[in-house]
């Protein structure tokens, strides 16, 4: 059973969001990393890039497949976790610690469309 953490928001495409210091911290769920298998490459956007809710902002590659990352929110990328470039395995080790990007939100109301932990857990069944 994959791990789902209370207090985070989740998208249908298996990204998680946490609001921290006014920024939306975004990663992929434990379910997503388990489905992908050993992740071999994380394709990251650049700081300053604009992202929109539901649009692609990067990709994960694993031995099994390549999968796009979809931003759950719109805004500007303030920070990327460049550590993942050389250590993509961190996503497998702890998907909730291995954040991918931090976004300055342009529309906070988009958060209302995301699932809480209970709803996300239910969606995985």
């Amino acid at each position: 059973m994959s791990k789902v953490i209370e207090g985070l928001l989740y998208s249908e495409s298996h990204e998680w969001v946490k609001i921290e210091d006014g920024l939306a911290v975004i990663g992929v769920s434990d379910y997503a990393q388990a489905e992908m298998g050993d992740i071999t490459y994380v394709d990251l956007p650049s700081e300053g890039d604009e992202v929109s809710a539901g649009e692609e902002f990067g990709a994960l590659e694993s031995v099994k497949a390549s999968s796009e990352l979809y931003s759950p929110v719109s805004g500007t990328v303030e920070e990327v976790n460049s550590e993942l470039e050389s250590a993509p395995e961190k996503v497998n080790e702890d998907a909730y610690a291995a954040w991918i990007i931090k976004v300055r939100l342009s529309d906070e109301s988009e958060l209302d469309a995301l699932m809480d932990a209970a709803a996300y857990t239910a969606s995985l069944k």
Partner: protein
Amino acid sequence: MKYYDKLIFELSRPGRCGYSLPASILGGKECACSNVGSKEAPVSGGVWRETPLTLPEVSEPDVVRHYTNLSQMNFGVDTGFYPLGSCTMKYNPKINEEIVSAFNGLHPLQPENTVKGALEVLDFVDGALAEITGMKHFTFLPCAGAHGELTGLMIMREYHMRRGDTARTKVIVPDSAHGTNPASAAVCGLDIVVVKSRPDGLVDVEDLKPLLGPDVAGIMMTNPNTLGLFERDIKEIAELVHECGGLLYYDGANMNPLLGVVRPGDMGFDIMHLNLHKTFSTPHGGGGPGSGPVGVAERLVPLLDVPRTSGFHGNFGIILRACAYILMLGRENVKMAGPLATLSANYIKESLKDCFKLPIQTVCKHEFVFDGLAEPNGVTTLDVAKRLLDYGFHAPTIYFPLLFHQALMIEPTETESLETLDAFIEVMRVIAREAAENPELLHTAPHNTPIGRPDETGAARQPVLKYTK
């Protein structure tokens, strides 16, 4: 199978030489053992090497044994059953090779009046493929399926551009499509829009309708699709796409079951490619090269003759093999290939559906997908695939299509005998029993091959891409 893992560089000994050619045939240059150029040679800019290239220095028996040993580590359709779904690994008849050997001396720059036989082959295969597919004409320049897709999309884009219809930048691709479809569209500079499949595995026409509009260049479809299911709504889809001004591209990857039975042209497709290395029995992969001829409907023929992907006539040797295959079978037997491939796939599917999970129950075409074992007991599709190697079968395609998480995709083709199919079915049943009784045996499989489970993750994360001493 003898274990052999040497690189030819490891066999190299300084100064060892298989042959040394006399200076007289090298225009008075140095011995063949040296590959350092002469300083007086008429090449400017200091591009001659100062030091010899590190080439392996080996004797003739070393070379022969090296490659023979490597070849014996290989598994091919000549050594066993190769039920690789989505790839159509059918047997390559030896008569193809015989025919090709008659054309060995041909050079692409020969004067036309000396190559009339070759031109006749091209003309014949063009006509035969056009008749089989319902297209008007084919170009043979694309050298692979994806090459064909790119060529086809360039034709699609140019068709709209020439009409001044520059707003058409979107290509619709089903979520069940081969990954090459969106990749080709992206390389061609087009945007990809995904249309969803219904629970029965077919394209959802209702989901398609709102995607259609004046910005749509076309749709790419594989029929039967990657689940091995015939897209029954294709006529309606074709009408909808044409109505909005778009074109239909047919990915010929799954043409095998339709050969001589149903024609993409009659379904409403405007552009298509065929994989000669799938449907027309020419070699795959390392045994290739491939060939992905692109055919178009009549109104697109003027766009066909622009060389987009390669020069001359593409991989002529492969076209020749396809020619031999078509002539060898003849009209009547070409029509048998599809139904036999379909029968073989359905036979395996029905024989194994009590041991393996069958997510889509309907009659399949040339291939079908299991979603892992019916009772996995912790055994994954990867474990099943690895265990099959122990029993001397090549593993089917696994973890594709992505719609099913434990996908195991089987395509037997029409070239296998009933006895081979039965032997495969028996082994699959044995593996299902082993999964119930001794799952550890499967987790650690294969046990009988020289290499078991290579570190794919390590190879992807820390690839070693060149040989260093």
